[in-house]
């Protein structure tokens, strides 16, 4: 008998369906599906990231259901557009929580939403994750129903500053956007730098888009830092700053955080402006998708995509998708643990299960076993971009903060 991917999936589904009869009584008594809801920026400034991530998430759900769902029940994904407006996301949340099939998990699309929804979660509790790495959210006392699917921005700064220290750096500068996102880790970063004996020689605050890059780079050049950490950008500003600095013959090492680490953006800049990003490095909490050989989860998703799309699948999944996929993996694990403990699948029990995730093998999303600490997963690795091979490749071990 030929054993292909479909056969394996069908077999797994059959085992899962059979095991559903043996699932704990409380789980059997609940709804016959898991509803996951969320908001995505399908229009507005982050539409490119939002639409790509949603399509990958729909595939992740399809693959999960093909494999028998979660604890024997299928997943239904309900997503609505927010236009990256926290108020619209909140309206979407209200709509989801007013539906007959209430979600057991809600995925937000901005830090703003995560903060706006906090009082609402007290009244209608549901476990809530999302795209935000905001440090404020990693606090079960102030945000009891929320979690971060990775390290906080402060942890990312810790990882980068440790990398600077390990590489003999002494002078560092911070360049960040004048947004909540940009300002988040700055004070903490200064404290960490001081503790590590690093000197923060300059801080440069820019607009989040359309910044006067030359003026900012001139200031940076005067400060002459060995390392510059760029933070608070997604698709714009950071490449222009690096390109302008290279034009000014600055040899500073530029470093970035999660949202400035997407290969598609770096490749686009390289195609248009040449190898200006060569050597740019930064922290990523997850493996890049092309490291699938080290990740059974990625390999499985790769096979699913290849089966579904054939040659139309380019073989790469953007980091913007890996983050929500990992977020959903954490919820999946929490549901499985809750069902296994024969407890009702509700917000309180799911959060307890989430908090109890220790040394979990995430299937290779992350390099170290995953432990949830303060509602976050504080680990990451430093990658460097090569303009010749157009890949971000690791230059550090996995660092747990």
């Amino acid at each position, binding site marked *: 008998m030929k054993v292909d991917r479909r056969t394996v999936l069908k077999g797994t589904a059959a085992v899962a369906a059979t095991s559903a009869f043996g699932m704990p009584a409380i789980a059997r008594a609940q709804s016959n599906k898991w509803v996951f809801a969320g908001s995505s920026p*399908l*229009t507005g400034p982050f*539409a490119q990231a939002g*639409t790509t991530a*949603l*399509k990958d998430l*729909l595939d992740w759900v399809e693959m999960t259901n093909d494999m028998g769902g979660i604890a024997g029940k299928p997943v239904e*994904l309900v*997503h*609505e*557009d927010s*236009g990256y407006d*926290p*108020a*619209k996301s*909140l*309206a979407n949340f*209200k*709509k989801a*929580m*007013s539906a007959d099939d209430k979600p057991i998990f809600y995925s937000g699309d901005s830090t*703003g939403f995560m*903060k*706006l*929804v*906090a*009082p*609402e979660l*007290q*009244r209608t509790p549901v476990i809530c994750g999302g795209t935000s790495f905001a440090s*404020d959210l990693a606090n079960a006392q102030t945000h009891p129903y929320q979690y971060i699917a990775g390290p906080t921005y402060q942890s990312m700064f810790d990882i980068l500053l440790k990398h600077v220290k390990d590489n003999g750096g002494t002078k560092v500068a911070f360049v960040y956007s004048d*947004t*909540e996102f940009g*300002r*988040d880790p700055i004070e903490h970063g200064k404290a960490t730098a001081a503790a590590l004996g690093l000197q923060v020689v300059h801080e440069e605050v820019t607009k989040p888009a359309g910044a006067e890059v030359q003026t900012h780079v001139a200031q940076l050049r005067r400060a002459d830092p060995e390392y510059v950490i760029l933070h608070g950008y997604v698709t714009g500003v950071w490449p222009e700053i690096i390109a302008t600095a290279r034009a000014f013959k600055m040899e500073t090492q530029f470093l970035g955080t999660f949202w400035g680490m997407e290969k598609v953006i770096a490749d686009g800049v390289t195609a248009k402006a040449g190898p200006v990003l060569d050597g740019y490095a930064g922290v990523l909490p997850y493996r890049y998708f092309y490291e699938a050989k080290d990740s059974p989860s990625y390999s499985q998703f790769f096979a699913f995509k290849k089966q579904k799309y054939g040659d139309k699948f380019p073989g790469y999944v953007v980091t913007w998708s890996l983050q929500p996929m990992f977020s959903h993996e954490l919820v999946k694990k929490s549901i499985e643990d809750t069902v296994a403990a024969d407890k009702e699948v509700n917000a309180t029990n799911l959060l307890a299960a989430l908090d109890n995730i220790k040394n979990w093998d995430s299937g290779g999303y992350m390099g170290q076993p995953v432990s949830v600490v303060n509602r976050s997963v504080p680990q990451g690795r430093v990658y460097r971009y090569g303009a010749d091979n157009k890949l971000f490749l690791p230059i550090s071990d996995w660092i747990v903060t």
Partner: protein
Amino acid sequence: MIIGDYKATYAADEAIFRSWPVRYGFAALLIALAVLPFGANGFIIFLVTQVAIYTVAITGLNILTGYTGLISLGHGALVGVGAYATAVFANWLGAPWWVVMPIAVVFTAAVGLVFGLPSLRIRGLYLTIATLAASFIIIFIIEHWTEVTRGDSGITLAPATIFGTPLVSDAQKYGLIVPIAILAVLFAQNLFRTRVGRAFIAIRDADYSAEIIGVALTRYKLLAFALGSAYAGLAGSLWAYNFLALLPTQFELQLSIVFLAALVVGGNARTLGPVFGAVFVVLIPEFLKWAFGLLTPLNPTIVEYTAPANTIVYGLLIIGFMIFEPMGLAAIWTRFWRFINLWPFSP
């Protein structure tokens, strides 16, 4: 030509509800609003509450822009002032909503008065730019005065309480916010039957002429800013008690533009204009989302195309209203009731 509008007494001429359909229509609306929380789900109640808050805010803009002719792009930021004033004073004083809300209204009126000072020297596009600058200044202060506003981290406040019951559910908040919004709209309707309201209209039509007939421009322009800002403050206060968490980004320029668009679509210089405008900007996007959502079962990834289509259709609707009914939805409404009132002799 308007016909069938004969009035034999001053009382008839001054009446708020001038015909039986309007009277009964208003009564029916009140009944519908009263029973809504008992039948609708939380999301519908939330949307109607949001319509009420927007109505108050846009009514303030209507006083300033529609009736007095002073175009403001800072109204969203003033709503933010009202919201933050509510949260800050509620947290500082620990006072109940009926104490905090008037403080927030007066505070916002005072802030609006300060930002209205340029209107004494400039008007038209120049004044619009000045209000735009005011918007940026207000948001900058809210973002950076972290000791008071908590800046980017956002600020929260305790829910309003009535007889010791915290108003946390959508229906409870609706019960507080919607009646206040109705009173605010009725107050605005009355305002334009007074000397003050007529002075505003005179300034809008020709400020030099208004001055010649005895309208004190300085006083009334500043009064318009103060009143418009007071409404913004009230809307902000209701907003704060509805959301219970505030972020500076909620009150940026886009909100001011939404208010202005709502006023144009709803019909400026008409009491019902802000109501229709608020209904339009809050409910139409949700309706379009629902309508396009019907296609999702056909293909889950179709949302990639329906989400932008939703935005485009919404934009086209706004443009369509401006082209085909520049007087706004309120004008269509008025024509409809006039038709009913005169039937079977309607023209």
